[in-house]
Each structure stands twice: as C-alpha cells, then as structure tokens.
C-alpha cells in the first residue's frame, strides 16, 4: 500500500523551497518587477548562510561548545544579507537604470548559480576534506530541531509537526504576506504600483521606494529557501524511465493552471498590468 505517513512529510519538506521562492516572487511581481533571477538569489542566499555557519562552526575546536542561538542566527543573517545584495543589484539595474527585467533576471541566474557553486567548491577545498561535501553537522542539526512535543501526537505529529523551524517560518511568511497584500493599505498601494505606476505616482506614492522595498524583501524571502535546500538532505531513488515522465507533471499542471486562469479571464487572477515594464515618469 502507498505509504502516506512517510510520503506527506517528504512532500511538505521538499515543497518548502518552492513556497519560499514563490512567496518572494509574488511580493516582487506585485510591485511590477518580474524577477527571473530568483534561482540565482536562492543560490547566493543559501551559500552565504553556509559560509557564515562554516566560519562560525570552524572557529571552535569542539563544535558542541557552540551557542545554539548564534548558530542559527549567523547563517540566517548572512543568508538575508547575501540575498538582499542580489535584490539591490536587480533593483539598481531595473528600477534605477530601467533596463530590461527579463535580461537582468537571466544574468542574475547565471551569476548566482556560478557564485553558489564556486564558493561551495572553494569551501570544500578550505575544509581540506576528502569527501566532496562540507560537514556542518552541528548547524544542520540545529536547523532540524523539531518541536519537542511532535512525537506525542502520533501519526498526526509525524505528518505535520516533524519539521525544522524553517518550514513553519515559510508557512507563516506566506500567510502574513497574503494578508498584507490583500487586506492592508500598504498592500493596496503596492498593488497599485504594480498595476499602473503612473497613476500611483500621480497619487503621490514613491514608485522607486515601493519597487526597491518589495523586490528586496522578495529576494530575502527567496534566499531563505536557498538556505533551506542546503540544510535538507533530498534523497534520490533509482532512475526509472517512467519516473522522468512523472517529473513532467508539476510543469504540465502549471501550464494547465496558467491556461485556465487566462481563459476564465477574471480580473483578480491576472498578473499585474505593468508587470515587467520599467517605469519612467516622462514616458506617458
């Protein structure tokens, strides 16, 4: 029989990077910026976090002396800082210099993926290990610390409470952003900027500031997703041919959803009107 009890936790665990990435991208897109550089941002954010924890963990002779709070805080701050820098770079190019967003995003992906792989490789060299992996067991275990009472809920606990804290952070961030975007004044203003920057500008909102803040925030959230991937062991099974076809499924589903929303053509399901277009005040 199909093993739901072990399937669901694995499905949730593997979907969290996507949740981080898409929450970040939604906030970014609502401001009218289409950031195709999210994979690059995730790589940079993740590797910055790992560099931070690597330096911290290796400054101790015995990793068990590490301060647990600092052990979590340092990678988090490094990760957020790294992805913030990527966000600032994207904003500088697309908002201040008003160059094409698709092209900038693709360049960010090239850069970010290279950056991540390069420093990942260099760290291995630094650590002088023979195996091609960096051992950050202590930090990794900190990130995997689960709720202390998860075990006492039986199957339910195993299925929904057995994750590291980043999983819950992702869910909380997604819920909070949904609330802010749809229910608050700031969210309304942000959506106005994305729909029609000229009108929002006339109403007195600072377009540049909204775009910068939303995009950078989005990048930082996406960066957390990168950090999460690196502390998660994704198991790989045997390579059956048919499995490759199953892997098509998520993308096919995305296409179907895309088509259905465009066929129904409901206003609230459409992407922002000015998505992907740079805003120049004198361009009316």
């Amino acid at each position, binding site marked *: 029989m199909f093993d739901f009890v072990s399937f669901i936790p694995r499905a949730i665990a593997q979907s969290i990077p996507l949740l981080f990435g898409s929450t970040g991208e939604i906030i970014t897109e609502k401001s009218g910026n289409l950031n195709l550089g999210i994979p690059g941002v995730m790589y940079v954010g993740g590797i910055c976090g790992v560099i931070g924890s690597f330096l911290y963990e290796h400054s101790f002779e015995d990793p068990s002396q590490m301060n647990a709070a600092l052990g979590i805080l340092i990678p988090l701050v490094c990760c957020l800082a790294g992805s913030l820098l990527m966000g600032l770079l994207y904003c500088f190019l697309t908002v201040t210099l008003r160059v*094409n967003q698709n*092209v900038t995003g693709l360049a960010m992906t*090239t850069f970010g993926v290279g950056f991540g792989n390069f420093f990942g490789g260099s760290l291995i060299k630094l650590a002088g290990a023979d195996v091609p992996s960096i051992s950050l067991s202590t930090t990794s275990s900190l990130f995997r610390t689960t709720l202390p009472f998860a075990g006492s809920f039986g199957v339910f606990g195993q299925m929904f409470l057995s994750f590291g804290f980043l999983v819950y952070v992702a869910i909380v961030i997604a819920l909070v952003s949904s609330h802010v975007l749809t229910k608050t004044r700031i969210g309304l203003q942000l959506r106005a900027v994305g729909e029609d920057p000229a009108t929002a500008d006339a109403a007195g909102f600072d377009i540049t500031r909204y775009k910068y803040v939303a995009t950078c925030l989005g990048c930082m959230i996406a960066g957390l997703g990168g950090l999460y991937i690196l502390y998660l062991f994704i198991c790989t099974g045997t390579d059956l041919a*048919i499995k*490759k076809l199953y892997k098509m499924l998520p993308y096919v589903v995305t*296409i179907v959803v895309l*088509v259905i929303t*465009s066929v129904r*053509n409901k206003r609230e399901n459409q992407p922002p009107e000015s998505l992907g277009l740079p805003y120049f005040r004198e361009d009316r």
Partner: protein
Amino acid sequence: MIHIAKRKEMPLLQSMAIRGLSVVLALVICGVITTILTGLNPIDVYVTFFSGAFGSARKIWILLQEIAILLCVSLALAPAFKMKFWNLGGEGQVLMGALATAACMILLGDKIPNALLIACMVVYSIVAGAVWGLIPALFKAKWNTNETLFTLMMNYVAAQLVAYFIIVWEVPKGSGKIGIINQSTEAGWLPQIGDYKYLLNIILVAIITVLMYVYLKYTKHGYEISVVGESTNTARYVGIDVPKVIIRTMLLSGAICGFAGLLLVGGTDHTLATTIANSRGFTGVMVAWLAKFNPFSMIASSFLLVFMERGASEISTIYALNQSFADILTGIILFFIIGSEFFITYRVYFTKKSEEVEKADV
C-alpha cells in the same frame, strides 16, 4: 539635482563606444576579482583569457562553432522578441529538435539510405521545434496566456521528455547515457566539408542570418511583426490579424530552434543529453536583446558572449579553479553590458538648485 531624460536616438558610433567602454570596465573588474581570489598577476589573467578564445586553431574553430549555435538560437528568438512575445522556451525548442534528430538517427539509422535519413532529420527536427513553439503561441493568441511562464514550463517538460528517452535508448544499459550514436556507420551524421568538422554548421547559420535580416527588414511579415511589437492596438486598427502573426512568428521561432538542435546532434555532438542546449535558450535572449534584434549586430553580441565564456572557462581550467568561476565572470560582464544600455537610452545631466528655481520662474 540629477536629471534623467530620454534620448532621441544615439549615433551608432557613440552607442558602440559606450558598449565598448562597459566591456572594458567589466574586464577590469573581472581581472581585479580574479586577482583577489587567486593572487595571480592581472596581466597573466588577461593573457590566459585571450589564449582561451584564440590560443590555437582548434580553439578558434570551437569559438566559431559556439558562436554559430548561439547565433542560431538567438536568430530564432529575435522575431518573437521583436513582436514582444517573450519566448523563454528556446531551451525546450532546441531540445525537442535535438530529440527528433536523435530519434531519426537511432530508429531509422540502418534502415534507409543516408541522404533520405538526413532529409528526415531536417524535417522532423524543424517540425518538433515548431510544434513546441506553437503550443504557447496558440494559447497566447486565443486567450492571452502569459507566454513567459508558459514557454519556461515547456522547457522543463522537454527536458524530462529527453531524460525519459535517454533512459529508453541508453547504451550500454544502466549507464544513463546514450553515447555516440551510429559511431561505426556514421549514419545521419551531417557531412563534413573537407577536414573542418564545424564548417558546415557555420555556413548554415551564416545563411540563416542573412535570410533573417531580409525577413525582418524587407518583407511584409517582418513589418507586421514590428507593428504588433510596437502596439497591438495599432496593428488591429490597420487590419493586421494579430493572432495569425503571433502563431506564424512562433512557428518560425520554434522551427529555427529545432534546427539548432539538429546542428548540435547531427552536426557536432552525435549524442543526446538533457544539457545539450547548455542554457543557450537563455543566453540567446541576451544576445538578441543586446543587438536590438538586428541579425548582423547579433553576430557581434554572440561573439562577445562566447568569447567571454571561453576566456573565463580557460582561466578556471588553467588555474584549477572551480568551473563555476566562469559563470561568475560571465555574470559580472553581463551586468555591465546590460547596465550600459541605460546610458544609451537615457541622458543624465546635473543641474544646480538655483537653475531649477529660475527655470520654474520662467
């Protein structure tokens, strides 16, 4: 105060100078970063950079071949972009062309004469690429479905399809690779001109470049594409059938991508891998955009990108750096080139506060 104003149009020479300057700046930054990370003499870094691209006859041929394939993909994407249809599916369309070619070579390899086989490969690869481009175009034309995401998803679907067939056809079983197809018979291998393995590809792409230039600049189709790109409302007003133009252009775009897949599998690699397109579908976006969709300028921009890539990868090989170092350098160079577009489109000037007040009074 800093003021920004849009320029009318910049003379070609001046815009080239700005782009050149940005490349030089980018190279300086790359040199500095390489020196910091590796402690090498910056002059050595640049020498290695150039020798990576032009070091030997073989390297020059590889450079030309890489330019040809990248140019072919960029040429395919250009008409779609000119129409403001963001075809990010070049990767998938190339893969489908490659898959169709490999399928012909494997399944028909020893059953039909070689000339017929190559004809089949050409037809099927073009059809496969065109179909992959047609699907998003149909939905875009009918329901205005977001083509950026649709084409992006089609890449992954194509990659998984290729991965599936690689396992179906793998040689030897269990290796997860196809290996060289028809190594002994060379059935379906595109003919070599003289001793030059890459010459045929280069000539074919050169022909496509000229044809595409003529198509975009001097034909009715090309004109319709640019009108739809500027404004769909205007296009509708003057009686252009917008959905028809979208579908026709994407068929062409996908077909040329499929042809690039043929050149890769039939012409040079003689094997199939999910990485065979090597992100050219995305790099091609940048090539086409940097050249402002002019096929002849695209030769220059694809040369620039391939040159950077070859040089950067030579540095990482020679100094035993991680191969990803090349990606970092390419990324930095791209940021500079992209950023320089701002100074070509806009004019920045400084005014003093008092002048502004005076202007306001007038």
